[in-house]
């Protein structure tokens, strides 16, 4: 395990801990390693015997906090500063100053009467659980032969070579009267196609995707797929990029694209209103179908088509048996994350008159709340009992999701449409969701979530992804207004720190307040490192001097 700490600065040990380490090293830690347990509810503790109650060697009391001396293993209780038997122990036995608290498996200095920290202690306690050694009660099942990369390189693989940039981006279009940045163009509504128009806007302005097509990586004129199979959705997308970035501001009709998409997805071909999220996923899917096979698949099994390179992430699912605590882990790739709306903070407590907590029904939901809900341990219902490998029987289980790998562009889908197959009804949840413009995804990463499950520790978690940026910036928000059957999608785009409303054919500048107040449905975030130059106005400066607009980003090791 890496000894590098990320974001944690190890507190300086008190002199008693330092002395203990000098004299005893890791002896004491290793002796109690096997007693470190994680109970089914995710609590870490020292458990010597499941059946016996710990008793204080001084007063034989069985209540309060219990501390086990790391030198002589005697148990002492502490109920108050006047009745601190752990302190007495250190006074009566010289040198017996460091103990471990039974209920939380944390180090305690009996003389300082305070918790102390030692990365070696945390390593010693948790190493078996992280490695998934047999007998430690934790299995790690990797789905589909995926290798857990120890360190993920920031290798975007998207060629941002200047020379191949399309010519039409260079020239400043004389027809353009507006001062809007290049790449903003309205789409005509072809009959309930706002679902398509809104998602297209979000796709067109996803920095890595935009760079890919504008660097001529998929040229519709020289595409081989098109000449053999005649249908190639990436080509149609390339055509739209050319049209939108041409400088022509008149609204564009994506009829050819629509027709092509219909041919790709016959079941969705109609003039009915579709779901924007479904459309988004289907477009990515079609891109992958056309480009995925051609691309060389790397050893670790990841597809290298542009859709996956940009949007694909990896989710981790931990299922813990509530009977024995055995956890099984699986990994699943994802192109977006669908979030349930959380229902705001909890109910107020009337006796705490000083606190001003709002009522659950009136409080706003926040994106952080939804993400918390997503990564919260969820008790699986009694009708969903799962077979536990350890117990060899079916038991109730607890499931916890977390994000193992973040994509370059993160699409968060807010589940506003509820479909009930039982009642054969669908309804829309209009609840307002507050979302940030800058998003830090660190707390939802597997490294953070699993780390938390192991209690209050100081160490870094297997190849800690501190070199991975978890900071994101929003660049597009697809909003929905109206009712389920007859609503309207509108996209807000952020270019050069200015927000634009893309309502089918009409593009207008708006204040950020309007965006914040909108009813978000799909929120698109891009990794902050990619966004720095992404918002640059491509029309104002000739490419030759604006070299850094398309800087190839070196993989960082």
């Amino acid at each position: 395990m890496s000894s590098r700490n990320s974001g944690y600065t190890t507190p300086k040990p008190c002199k008693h801990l330092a002395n203990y380490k000098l004299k005893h090293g890791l002896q004491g830690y290793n002796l109690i390693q096997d007693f470190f347990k994680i109970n089914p509810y995710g609590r870490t503790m020292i458990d010597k015997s499941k059946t016996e109650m710990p008793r204080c060697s001084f007063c034989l009391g069985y209540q309060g906090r219990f501390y086990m001396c790391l030198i002589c293993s005697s148990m002492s209780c502490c109920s108050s500063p006047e009745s601190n038997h752990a302190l007495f122990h250190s006074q009566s036995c010289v040198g017996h100053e460091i103990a471990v608290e039974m209920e939380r498996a944390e180090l305690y200095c009996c003389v300082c009467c305070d918790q102390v920290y030692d990365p070696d202690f945390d390593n010693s306690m948790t190493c078996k659980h992280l490695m998934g050694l047999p007998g430690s009660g934790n299995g790690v099942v990797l789905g589909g032969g995926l290798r857990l990369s120890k360190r993920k390189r920031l290798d975007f693989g998207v060629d941002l070579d200047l020379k191949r940039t399309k010519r039409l981006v260079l020239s400043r279009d004389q027809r353009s009267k507006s001062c809007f940045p290049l790449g903003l163009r309205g789409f005509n509504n072809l009959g309930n196609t706002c679902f398509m128009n809104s998602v297209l806007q979000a796709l067109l302005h996803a920095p890595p995707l935009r760079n890919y097509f504008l660097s001529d990586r998929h040229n519709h004129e020289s595409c081989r797929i098109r000449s053999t199979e005649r249908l190639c959705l990436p080509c149609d997308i390339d055509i739209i990029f050319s049209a939108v970035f041409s400088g022509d501001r008149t609204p564009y009709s994506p009829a050819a694209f629509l027709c092509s998409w219909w041919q790709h997805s016959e079941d969705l071909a109609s003039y009915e209103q579709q779901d924007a999220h479904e459309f988004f996923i289907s477009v990515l899917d079609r891109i992958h179908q056309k480009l995925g096979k051609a691309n060389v698949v790397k050893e670790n099994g990841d597809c290298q088509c542009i859709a996956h390179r940009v949007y694909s992430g990896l989710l981790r699912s931990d299922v813990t048996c509530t009977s024995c605590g055995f956890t099984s882990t699986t990994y699943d790739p994802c192109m977006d994350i669908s979030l349930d709306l959380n229902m705001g903070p909890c109910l107020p407590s009337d006796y705490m008159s000083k606190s001003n907590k709002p009522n659950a029904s009136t409080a706003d939901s926040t994106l952080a709340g939804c993400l918390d809900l997503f990564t919260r341990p969820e008790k699986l219902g009694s009708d969903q009992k799962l077979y536990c490998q350890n117990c060899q029987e079916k038991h109730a289980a607890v499931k916890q999701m977390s994000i193992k790998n973040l994509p370059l562009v993160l699409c968060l889908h807010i589940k506003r449409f509820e479909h009930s197959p039982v009642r054969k009804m669908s309804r829309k949840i209009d609840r307002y969701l507050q979302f940030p413009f800058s998003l830090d995804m660190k707390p939802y990463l597997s490294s953070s979530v699993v780390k938390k499950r192991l209690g209050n520790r100081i160490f870094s978690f297997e190849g800690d992804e501190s070199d991975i940026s978890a900071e994101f910036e929003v660049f597009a928000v697809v909003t929905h207004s109206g009712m389920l059957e007859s609503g309207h999608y509108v996209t807000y785009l952020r270019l050069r720190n200015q927000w634009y409303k893309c309502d089918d054919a009409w593009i207008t500048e708006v204040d950020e307040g309007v965006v914040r107040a909108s009813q978000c449905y799909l929120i698109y975030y891009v990794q902050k490192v990619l966004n720095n130059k992404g918002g640059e106005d491509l029309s104002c400066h000739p490419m030759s001097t604006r070299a850094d607009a398309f800087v190839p980003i070196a993989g960082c090791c």
Partner: protein
Amino acid sequence: MKIVCIVERQRRASIKRPPTPDAEDETDREPTIQEIINIKLIESGEKERLKELLRERLIECGWRDEMKALCRAHARKKGRNNVTVDDLVHVITPKGRASVPDSVKAELLQRIRSFLSSTAL
């Protein structure tokens, strides 16, 4: 409420008693009813479940957030480096105990009662 009172009284008595190095004398006495109940709760795993239930309820109603805020305030007042775990526990415990919602107390008591009625003492 009855059981809670008995346990409180017993605990208060044991706190005030000075520590005796000769603990061997104490092993001869009969275990009190509270100890027996505690043993039964632990052995059956019910204590762990009750603790988990209690944690859930206290988080739901905002009690834990309230305690966190109190701890932060105390740490800020005394200075970050002058606060110990013991100190915090000592200061927060009375406030914490006082602000547990009655509904939570009632629910847990009910659970303990039904456990006791289902187990042979």
